[in-house]
């Protein structure tokens, strides 16, 4: 599903990584580990297609409609409510039975009660959960998660654990994380950044 050969990324004089090789088969669950600034986020952004590599090549067998990306930021509008945000994304992704799916996801991530509040009043954890709703809204086949547990309290983390476990077989995952032990039971492979 994802294949990278000799992938290199450079920002001006700073070299992020060089000669990276990656193979992720369909249905795989690959962890990307390493310290901050090592290039985990950059790799995910490359796979998502948000940036172009400075060297090498990368092939991703998923269209934008099949891809879900959890970034560092929640990518939601602060002045809008969860419902409005998800409705917009739902329309753009042509989600079938949009309203039902939004409702279901908000409930599953315990955001239903806050559905009509502006996200500017949300806590870090709530924003992260909303972002997860955004990512999973269109049932993506390739899910890219950048530090999915960041900002989540124990409840939120449990919700996420459950969610990932249930989706394990239906999609391909590439997860950048600080705590690989947490997801070790799901993973089929890992890539370590120095």
């Amino acid at each position, binding site marked *: 599903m994802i294949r990278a050969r000799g992938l290199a990324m450079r920002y001006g004089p700073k070299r992020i990584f060089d000669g990276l090789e990656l193979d992720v088969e369909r249905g795989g669950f690959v962890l990307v580990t390493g310290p901050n600034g090592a290039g985990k986020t950059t790799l995910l952004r490359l796979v*998502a*297609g*948000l*940036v*172009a590599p400075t060297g090498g090549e990368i092939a991703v067998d998923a*269209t*934008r*409609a099949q*891809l879900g*990306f959890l*970034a560092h*930021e*929640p*990518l*939601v*509008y*602060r*002045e*809008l409510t969860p419902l*409005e945000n998800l409705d*917009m*994304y739902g*329309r*753009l*992704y*042509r989600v079938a039975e949009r309203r039902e799916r939004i409702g279901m996801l908000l409930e599953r991530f315990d955001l239903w009660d806050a559905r009509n509040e*502006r996200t500017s009043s949300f806590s870090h954890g709530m924003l992260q959960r909303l972002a997860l709703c*955004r990512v999973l809204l269109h049932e993506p086949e390739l899910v890219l998660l950048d530090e999915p547990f960041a900002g989540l309290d124990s409840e939120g983390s449990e919700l996420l654990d459950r969610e990932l476990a249930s989706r394990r077989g239906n999609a391909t995952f590439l997860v950048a994380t600080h705590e690989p032990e947490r997801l070790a039971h799901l993973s089929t492979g890992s890539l370590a950044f120095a």
Partner: protein
Amino acid sequence: MSGYFADVATLARKDLLLELRGRDTLPAMLLFVSAALVIFHFALPSGTGELAGLGLLWVAIVFTALLGLSRVFVAEREQNVLDGLVLAPSDRSAIWFGKALAALAFLALAEVIALPLFALFFSGMDAATVAAVALADIGICAVGVFVAAMSIATRARELLLPVLFLPLAIPVIVGGVGASVTDSPGRYFAFLALYDALFATICWASFEYVVTE
């Protein structure tokens, strides 16, 4: 095809909603244009005639538009939401199109106040001017939103916007002022229409490259 326009509508509606919630850009534009008109009264020595006033009206419109345009991508930039829009399966040009429509709405609203105000303070307002304003707005918003998207990708951000926008706005000024002050505005209408068609097309066709790599 219908999907494309649905996307445009979704995004335009989102932008209008954002402004409704934020309520900062439009009031600022209204206040700005009103203040500008008052300043023009003091800036026009007696004997300069009403045509000078009309010329200044166009200056006011362009700079009011600039004020609004500096805010069009603020929400996307601050929370990096633009990534979310770019990742969506919709055509990237829909982002430009939707936002340009919303910007057009704001500019038109500002002019709904500005034009009667101008007619009140000065003389020389006529149907040709109003029509020219309408035509010019299209070009201003199409190019302005496009250039605003370019400027937020830079380090200088909003500082770059006037620098990029104003040279491109010169033909609009010519078309607008020409239509307002001369006796044969037809040529200028045609010119504005040409500008609108031409630049809207290249904006639409190349927006993809402004937001992707």
